[in-house]
């Protein structure tokens, strides 16, 4: 608890756990001086389900569906990170076609995650229309992914050694049509939002995060890249079929809220480029490795595997004791580190700006709570 009444004129404001801008259940205890924040303390854990404890009580395969429920907005990246960690642990090689399918689907999922963010974030800032555009675009992605994976949100599609299904012609033509569509929509987003003077005034020079802070708090993802550090696991620690694709890492200059917005918009364009190239290069062949054992029993040892999710670095740390169950799984989730910087950034801002800052970090609270 924050100590009350540090100064006579200050008061405590309780934001959340039920607040429209916290996207999940987050509570922020604010010590206020008038409209200005003098101290902010996030209180988390409302969505704690004990995923790491569950992992210790079931086999490797049985834990796979949990991965779609940690970060539900970019579930396929978590599928991928966990599968790759287990594959590394048991020494499985994934066929080339499966790697390309993973890249295509994960990038579609990344775009859909960013679209949710843009819609919800602008809604936080008081702009109602953009969410209608963003969800319209997102619906096309969900239809495409639904066709292949069978689900719309909590995907569980990748398997140890490959993927559980293949792409078909209709998906490929639908994907190409969607790329064209979204590219033309970016012009609308630009004129509606990016060049909107109200939006710019609301976000420029607000919530600046410096490079030094980014290192000390271990920020990752667009939140980090907004501060001008070009760190993206897809480039810096290449995995899957990403090395075969040519793409750039958009970065910001000032590290303010606007830069973090811009990074995500530009990232979606790069994701489209990745998908396009991956579709063009999609090789023929199997989608599952040969002879994947039904009961995985990895030798004793430990492994760490990182992938780039829509919010930053998702790391999967597995300790095996040679059993059919993992001995310990730690999920290193990006929002955890990204939110821990909030007390430092929020101070001396207005409450209204706190909403802008909190949203710009793009936190998924159940991912933090696990």
């Amino acid at each position, binding site marked *: 608890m924050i100590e009350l009444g540090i100064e006579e004129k200050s008061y405590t404001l309780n934001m959340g756990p039920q607040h429209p801008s916290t996207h999940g259940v987050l509570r922020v205890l604010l010590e206020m001086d008038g409209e200005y924040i003098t101290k902010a303390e996030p209180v988390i854990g409302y969505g704690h389900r004990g995923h790491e404890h569950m992992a210790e009580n079931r086999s490797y395969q049985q834990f796979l569906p949990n991965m779609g429920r940690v970060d539900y907005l970019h579930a396929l990246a978590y599928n991928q990170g966990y599968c790759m960690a287990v594959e590394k642990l048991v020494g499985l090689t994934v066929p080339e076609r499966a790697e390309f399918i993973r890249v295509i689907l994960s990038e579609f999922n990344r775009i859909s995650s960013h679209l949710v963010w843009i819609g919800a974030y602008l809604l936080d800032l008081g702009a109602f229309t953009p969410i209608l555009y963003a969800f319209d675009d997102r619906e096309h992605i969900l239809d495409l992914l639904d066709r292949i994976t069978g689900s719309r949100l909590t995907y569980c599609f990748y398997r140890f050694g490959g993927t559980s299904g293949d792409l078909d012609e209709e998906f490929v033509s639908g994907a190409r049509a969607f790329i064209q569509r979204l590219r033309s929509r970016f012009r609308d987003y630009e004129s509606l939002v990016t060049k909107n003077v109200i939006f710019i005034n609301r976000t420029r020079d607000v919530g600046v995060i410096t490079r030094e802070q980014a*290192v000390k708090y*271990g920020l990752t993802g667009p939140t980090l890249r907004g501060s001008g550090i070009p760190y993206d696991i897809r480039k810096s620690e290449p995995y899957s079929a990403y090395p075969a694709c040519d793409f750039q890492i958009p970065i910001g200059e000032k590290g303010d809220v606007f830069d973090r917005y811009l990074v995500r918009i530009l990232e979606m364009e790069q994701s489209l480029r990745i998908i396009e190239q991956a579709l063009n290069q999609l090789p023929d062949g199997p989608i599952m490795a040969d002879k994947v054992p039904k009961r995985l029993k990895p030798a004793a040892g430990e492994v760490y595997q990182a992938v780039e999710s829509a919010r930053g670095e998702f790391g999967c740390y597995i300790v095996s004791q040679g059993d059919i169950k993992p001995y310990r799984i730690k999920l290193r989730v990006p929002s955890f*580190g990204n939110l821990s910087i909030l007390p430092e950034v929020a101070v001396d801002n207005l409450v209204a700006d706190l909403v802008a800052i909190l949203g710009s970090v793009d936190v998924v609270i159940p991912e933090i709570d696990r």
Partner: protein
Amino acid sequence: MLKDKLKTALASLKLAQVSDGDYARTGYHLEVAAGPEQMPAVAQAMLDQGCFLESLTAVDWRESFTLVYHFASFAELCRTVVHASLTKETKGAEAPTISRVYPGADWYEREVYDLFGIKFAGHPNLKRLLLPEDADFHPLLKDFGAEPGND
């Protein structure tokens, strides 16, 4: 190369192990073993080389704990894992905090305290993070949930 710089920087700390990792198999470029009391100095050395704290967690081995620190760098691909073994004592296991070096470690250490009951000496705000403030258990201990109905 960052790996060589880190080796040089860590050599002066007289750690139990500083060796090359098998990256293809484990994902580590550098594997380090240190005593918990050496961790603030190790963290400072990592920060001086521009590394960030990727993750901090613990493993319960029943007789002892291992604290596991992962460090990586924004500038160059080099992941360092630091294992710090911690004996279980009757008064409770304790390690010094590194949150003065890395403020981001604040929450990670609170999480380890919350889930394992390991205390961090000198931590500015060591209280429960994910579980309710009045919880009286540490769910990632291996003897948690051993009784029927507890799981």
